[in-house]
C-alpha cells in the first residue's frame, strides 16, 4: 500500500486514488494529417519505464482532483508530487534502482521504446 501525498488533502492511502497512466503526453495539434500508425502511437503506446516515471493520478474518493506524480516503478518510491500543468521536476537520475541492471524499458522488450 502506497501513501500518496495529495497536493490538496495531504497524505492518504493509495486505495483512495486511481492512476491515470503516463503524464505529459501531448495531443497532436493536427490529427487529420496523421497516419493511422502515428495516431495509434499517440493513443496507445506508452513508455512503461522501469525506473522513474511521471504519472497522472486522481484522488477519486477524496477531492477528485488530478495531479502528477514522479514514481520509481521499480521500487514504488514516490519522488515528487506536483500540480497539473506544471513541468516535471528535474530529478537526479532516471536510472532504475535495480540490483541486476535491467534495461530501462520494461522486461527487456524494446518494441515500445520511442525512437
Amino acid at each position, binding site marked *: 500500500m502506497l501513501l500518496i501525498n495529495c497536493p490538496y488533502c495531504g497524505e492518504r492511502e493509495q486505495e*483512495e486514488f486511481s492512476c491515470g497512466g503516463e503524464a505529459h503526453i501531448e495531443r497532436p495539434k493536427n490529427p487529420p494529417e496523421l497516419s493511422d500508425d502515428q495516431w495509434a502511437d499517440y493513443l496507445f503506446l506508452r513508455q512503461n519505464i522501469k525506473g522513474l516515471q511521471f504519472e497522472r493520478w486522481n484522488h477519486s474518493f477524496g477531492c477528485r482532483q488530478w495531479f502528477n506524480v514522479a514514481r520509481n516503478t521499480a521500487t514504488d518510491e514516490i519522488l515528487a508530487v506536483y500540480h497539473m500543468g506544471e513541468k516535471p521536476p528535474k530529478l537526479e537520475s532516471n536510472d532504475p534502482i535495480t540490483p541486476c541492471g535491467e534495461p530501462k524499458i520494461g522486461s527487456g522488450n524494446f518494441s515500445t521504446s520511442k525512437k
Partner: protein
Amino acid sequence: MTLERRAVLKELKIEKNGISIEEIPFVEKLNLRGSPKDKNFLTDVGTILETLLPIDPNTKVENTDFQVIWLSPNEWLINFLKNDKFNITHQKFINQLNPEKTSVTDVSENKTIIRLVGDKSIELLRKFMILDIDKILKDNSKVAQTIFVKIPILIIRNHSQDQKQSFDLHINRSHANYLKELLLDGCNQFIN
C-alpha cells in the same frame, strides 16, 4: 401524484453497547462551485451566507443556520441546519451569482446523514476505515472525504476534545442500510 419523502433506515435511532447510530433525514443541501480566486464570487457568497467560505482543505465553517464544507478547491457543500432557510438562500444564489462562472445544485436527495455518537466511535470507525482519524480529523473544524470499506463517504467531526465523540457520515442513500449493518456488527465488541 406526489411522492412520499422517506428516511432510509426503518428505525431512525439505534443504540447498542454505548454507541448510538441515528439517521438525520431531510437535511437540505446545496452544492456550490466557483473559483476561490474570483473575488466577486467570494464576496457574494460571503454576503449571502454571512460567513466566509472555508478555503483550507478538509475544513468546515458553521453557524446556527448552515454548515459549509470544503469538498475540493472549487467546490463546497452547504448543509441547511434549519430547513426554512433553504429556499431563500437557494434563490439568492441563483439571483446574485454569475451563472457563467459558478454553479449551484440542489443535492438534498443525493445523500443521507448517519450520526454516530458514543465514547468508542473512533474505535468503531477504525474497523472499517483506512483514514488516519486521529491525524486528519484532529479537531471539530475538520472533515474528510474517504472510503468506508468500499463506500465513498464524507465524514465530519462534531465533537471538541472534551465532548462525547460524535461524527456525521454523509453517504449515498442506497448504502445507508449496508453501513448501519456493518456499524451494528462492529458494536458487538463493546459489550458493557
